[in-house]
């Protein structure tokens, strides 16, 4: 009996520890006037450095800092939750989350089902290959095996060139798995947002990688905060984004993560 009880209490302790951990992390900053506003559930897929990733269990990245700044500017409290890429869309569709900031490109297809904020980031798909690769443009991808992250615009861009659901396009749950597949020679190239693969190539010089650009094949994309359809939050955060542009916060965060200055004019032209 005593043995059973001790096992039970041990189990209970575990449960308590876990719940304490999960509720303790990820909550953001706030301002005083926000006391009456509800705490927003903001979801992301924290496997996409430098935008959002886990560093020793803590969520870090460009989007994470932007969200913090947006919260300050708008007065909304929020809780950032890492749910994974597909669930981000599922949660917003079923309205179990209030918004998502997760390096999501604004596309006409997505805009049919969701609302987007004004753009807060400019990005282009590029090709990551081995230094010795003969791939010099998007057209060279034909006939090659290409690894992408499932459901991304990188996948869409590749499928536009080689055909939809082409068996030579390998779709992975995270961008890291896709890159690993290429390093293991299971794929010839990875197509993804430039900032992500450029950072990877820069941080891993020993892997002998290079990034190939093809401005004609891959159009520039804008990231937006994604909401459920007809969200009332959209105007609030659009205003907050504008404020980050004008008061220099945006440039500061951008430089912190990407080491260069942002193309603010192109972004402002989209507002």
């Amino acid at each position, binding site marked *: 009996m005593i043995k059973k009880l001790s096992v039970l209490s041990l189990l209970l302790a575990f449960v308590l520890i876990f719940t304490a951990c999960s509720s303790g992390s990820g909550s953001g900053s706030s301002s005083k006037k926000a006391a009456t506003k509800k705490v927003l559930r903001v979801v992301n897929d924290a496997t996409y450095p430098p935008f959002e990733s886990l560093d020793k269990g803590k969520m870090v990245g460009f989007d994470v800092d932007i969200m913090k700044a947006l919260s300050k500017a708008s007065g909304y409290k929020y809780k950032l939750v890492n749910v994974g*890429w*597909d669930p981000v*869309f*599922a949660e917003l*569709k079923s309205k179990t989350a209030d918004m998502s900031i997760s390096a999501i490109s604004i596309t006409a297809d*997505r805009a*049919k*089902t969701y609302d987007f904020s004004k753009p807060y980031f400019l990005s282009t798909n590029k090709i990551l290959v081995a230094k010795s690769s003969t791939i010099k443009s998007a057209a060279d991808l034909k006939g090659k095996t290409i*690894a992408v992250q*499932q*459901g991304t615009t990188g996948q869409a861009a590749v499928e536009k060139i080689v055909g939809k*659901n082409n*068996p030579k396009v*390998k*779709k*992975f*749950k995270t961008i890291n*798995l896709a890159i*690993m*597949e290429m390093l*293991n*020679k*299971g794929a010839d190239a990875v197509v993804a947002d430039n900032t992500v693969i450029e950072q990877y190539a820069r941080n891993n010089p020993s892997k002998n990688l290079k990034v190939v650009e093809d401005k004609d094949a891959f159009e520039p994309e804008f990231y937006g905060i994604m909401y459920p359809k007809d969200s009332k939050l959209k105007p609030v955060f659009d205003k907050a984004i504008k404020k980050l542009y004008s008061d220099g916060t945006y440039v500061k965060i951008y430089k912190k993560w990407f080491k260069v200055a942002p193309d603010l004019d192109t972004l402002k032209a989209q507002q």
Partner: protein
Amino acid sequence: MGVNPLDIIREYLPFFASGTLFTVGFSLAGIVFGTLLGLLVCFGKMINNKALSWPFICYITFFRGTPLYVQILIIHFGVVPAVFGQSNGILAGALALSLNEAAYIAEVFRAGIQSIDEGQTEAARSLGMSKLQAMRYIVLPQAVRRVLPPMGNEFISLIKDSSLIAAIAAPELTYWAQAMGAQYAIVWTPYLTISFIYLILTLTMSFLVNRLERRMATK
């Protein structure tokens, strides 16, 4: 959104068809190689010599004690590239399933063999059979009949577990359902469709095992 589920299913039908073939292929590979290897591991574990049986005990401990998902990742991104110089999702998937299945099959077989009364072996030995003959003609035939139901269970879970291979982009059923879900940002249509297909597969498997059981039953 005005997308008709039937239209999307029709669009993905060829992919679900080839995905089903891959799922069946992975399961068959797991069943065949898993059973053969499992038998070997089972006999290895039952060797009356600690030094010789030790590696087999380790094998079972590892493959039963760690998640299949983790094993798949290790084999795809670690083992297969290290051995063959490049990754191969299909090979890694079949390998992971077989190795994992073998550990479970080994334990099922051991339980079956040890459930046969010691007296049977003793009687066979006293009739002049060798140890090997006693195992081959007396113990194993009875053990096989006893392990059929638990083996059937293992095979059914194997079919379901093969869905984890989607993680390494091997084009089986779940992989295509995820692709479909990601493309149209939908949940119900892809996953209910493949649930239905998995059900057909598992029901077929339990039907086959049932028939085998009936055929091998003693009157």
